């Protein structure tokens, strides 16, 4: 299980390195000089490999006073295999530019960069990260939705009211990398299998070792490690030799 997580960590590096250059648009003169590019929405989405993101990525170009810049050129660079439609364009009157991203066929973190040309031809850039789940992590997500998220996800929806507030020992959201990354694979496995008391934690976390199969718990672990924020980086990471 640890190895899967190493894969994702390493993959994110590899993916970030194999960006393809986007074609520079021939822009009209923008209304002001772009000084910053900010993300409006669409970052940190979770999807499965090969699938379009549910929400589009929206970025906004601002000038040095923080006012939106219309007519600025924005170009996106996405890792290999990911497709942006469109990959470049001109910001609208609100200074914003919207694009749709379809994730490639490899699971991992996809770092998308959006760039515009600032004063003196200097490139102003922002990085937006998206997450693609592979088969095992997606299976983990499905299981998590059934068995875990009622307590571990504090957000309620009309269809599913969260039980988070009713618990004395507050469960950690699976995205809580700051906490969960410190728990080793064996310990995390033990908590799922034998419940909280296995690690001297609350009995409110029940044991699932006889309800879920070994493969199910493996998948859950893969999912938990994949969605960790900050990303899960096991100490023993070994990177492949560069060719």
């Amino acid at each position, binding site marked *: 299980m640890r190895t899967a997580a*190493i894969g994702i960590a390493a993959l994110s590096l590899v993916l970030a390195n194999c960006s393809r250059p986007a074609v520079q648009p021939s822009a009209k003169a923008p209304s002001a000089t772009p000084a910053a590019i900010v993300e409006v929405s669409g970052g940190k989405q979770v999807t499965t*490999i090969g699938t379009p993101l549910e929400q589009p990525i929206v970025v906004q170009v601002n000038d040095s006073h923080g006012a939106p810049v219309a007519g600025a050129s924005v170009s996106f660079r996405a890792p290999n295999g990911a497709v942006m439609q469109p990959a470049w364009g001109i910001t609208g009157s609100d200074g914003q530019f919207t694009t749709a991203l379809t994730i490639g066929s490899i*699971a991992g973190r996809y770092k998308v960069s959006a760039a515009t040309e600032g004063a003196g031809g200097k490139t102003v850039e922002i990085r937006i990260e998206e997450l693609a789940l592979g088969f*095992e992590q997606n299976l983990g997500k499905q299981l998590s939705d*059934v068995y875990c998220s009622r307590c571990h996800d504090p957000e309620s929806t*009309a*269809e599913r009211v969260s039980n988070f507030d009713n618990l004395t020992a507050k469960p950690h959201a699976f995205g809580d990398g700051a906490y969960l990354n410190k728990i080793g694979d064996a310990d995390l496995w033990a908590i799922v299998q034998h419940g909280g008391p296995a690690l001297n934690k609350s*009995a*409110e976390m029940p044991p699932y070792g006889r*309800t879920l199969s070994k493969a199910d718990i493996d998948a859950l672990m893969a999912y938990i490690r994949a969605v960790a924020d900050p990303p899960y980086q096991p100490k023993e990471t070994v990177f492949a030799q560069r060719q």
Partner: protein
Amino acid sequence: MANRSKLASIRETLFGDSARAFGTLGIVLLLLLAVVPARDQFREWYRYQKGYLRLIGGRGDAVTLKRRFTGGIQQTWIPELNVVDRCSSCHVAMKEATLRDVGTQPFRPHPSIPHSLTDFGCVMCHRGQGVATTVEEAHRSTLAWEEPMIPARYLESSCGQCHMDKLAGTPKLNAGRGLLSRYGCVHCHSIPLPDGTKLIPSDDPPPLTHIADKTTREWIYGWLKNPAGYSSTATMPNFQLNDNDARDISAFLMAQSTPSAYPVAVPEASGTPDAPALQAGASAYGESFCASCHAIQNAAGLLVGGNLGPELTRIATKAKPGWIRQWVHNPKDYDPGTAMPHYRFDDKQLALIGGFLESKTDPDFLANVHLDTATAGQIAHGKQLVNENGCAACHEINGIRKPESLAPDLTAVGSRPLAKIVFVAGMEHTLPAYIEAKIKQPRSFGAALKMPQFNLAVPQIDALVTALLAQTDRAFNLPARLRVARHPATNYEPAGAAGRLMHDLNCFSCHAINGRGGDMAPDLTFEGSSVQREWLLAFFKNPNTLRPTLIRRMPKFNVTDQESAILTDYILAVYQTPSVEKDSMVASSEPADIERGRQLFYSKYACQSCHIVDPKKDKGYVGPTLTHVGSRLNAAWIYQWLKAPQSLRPGTIEPDRQMNDADGKALTAFLMAQKGQEAKGK
């Protein structure tokens, strides 16, 4: 002449005598033999294998990895699956788990899946040309190769070749197969699953035999022109009819309608309801849990409610007021096959709910529809159009026979050869792109095509393409032992008076029993083993929910005492599990045992995180409320549930704790002591 003498001298030098000839031939043969292995030096796979050895050379586990590496062309051959794979000639590290950090292809190990790569090979899931040994030929369709690799987006379709049932890891495939039923694709197309079982349509199209009772010709016209304009969740597609065709079809449908015979005439509305009456109607609508199945748009434009029945936001624009009351009184009088239960509303409730529904109008929908009286010619033309468009494939219509094989057979659509597909100009020449375009915009392939325009979002189209790509030739020719069967819906029918009642109340719309029925409410196959008679009798009279956070709830059907008793006795007698001997256990009433159970409940097992026993103290609401559990369930069921919950309800999220007998008995004693208010303070 000079050339000829030169050739002669060469021949003399090489083949002058038998010793020379032998030596020359030997050298030529040696060279030829050397060329064969040398040619491999220029193959793609050889380059990749070299690259792999360089890649692992610097790693800590290089020795192990090198030992496990075999050079040359690697082949997996599984005759019974028709699989010949040489993919591992380049994808050399597929089984090397220690290389999980490698991100460059073709050296990535295969992600963890539930199957052995050796047993199934690669093309079974990824498709592509397994026998090819070049990147281009293996992955993409070139020259005579037919099958390119399947994009990751639709990869789940390959699971569907063997797995007929829903799988936790294939949400897209599950959704796609659900949509084939939900949108009634299987009314027109033949799409048998690879094991031959049929998908049952779940869209429940209404019969049109008495449609003039229900609605107006103007509404039919507006609906035909754009179903999504009336209801955004309509499963009826848009046939893109022109004004005249929609006019003529509406004329024919009104003309073929016969009045339906109502055994009881429901009183008509007495004037428009005032604001308090509307408010009371809305309350009655809420208390009857109509929203468990029907959605209504709220002020913010969001749909609130379930999607088992049609959206009711504009119902009074569609249905005539008298019909609404008649329907709410007993829907089976109009449509015997409807999924809607027969509530036993009294006249007052009928007036309230009828008044509320009759206020749900949208004058804009039919504002521009003005139809003149239909002529005989229009009606005849309408009948012809109804036949041509295959309306009777879904709807029952007087005088129209259900058409056979209206639409192309999609049995093996996932293996359709590209050579047989006519692509539209500018389209990507792949099978998934073709199927996607066919679903997204069927008429883009020709204006004369019959397939209507469905109102589907991108993820729904993705799911449908995934489900259709599972329909491969290989899937239909698999050995039977590999097929994981679906549990096809049974046609279980309860007997006698209780059976008739359950049919009238449409229990199966929400509950499943013995493999038949919906999944909105609990499976009742073993209900008789779990509950007590008094509780069930009272529950039918007034179904108080056990799960306060649920928004879909069991409605109050207003059954009589006698009906409640018939249902209760039948359920208790028939729906039993063999693993619980119902009256075999009497829970201990010793205070010491109950106290021990209480401590186990609150400390060792921390049941209060999901269940409520003491409403003042406990807050958990993942599981049902247990304040009255002692007067609801019987002891033997509770005990068995604590020991092995999945044996009683497969798939329940209650964790199996392998509870020992003593703990189980103490907890049973504690839970059986929870009898509700009366027992408080004891």
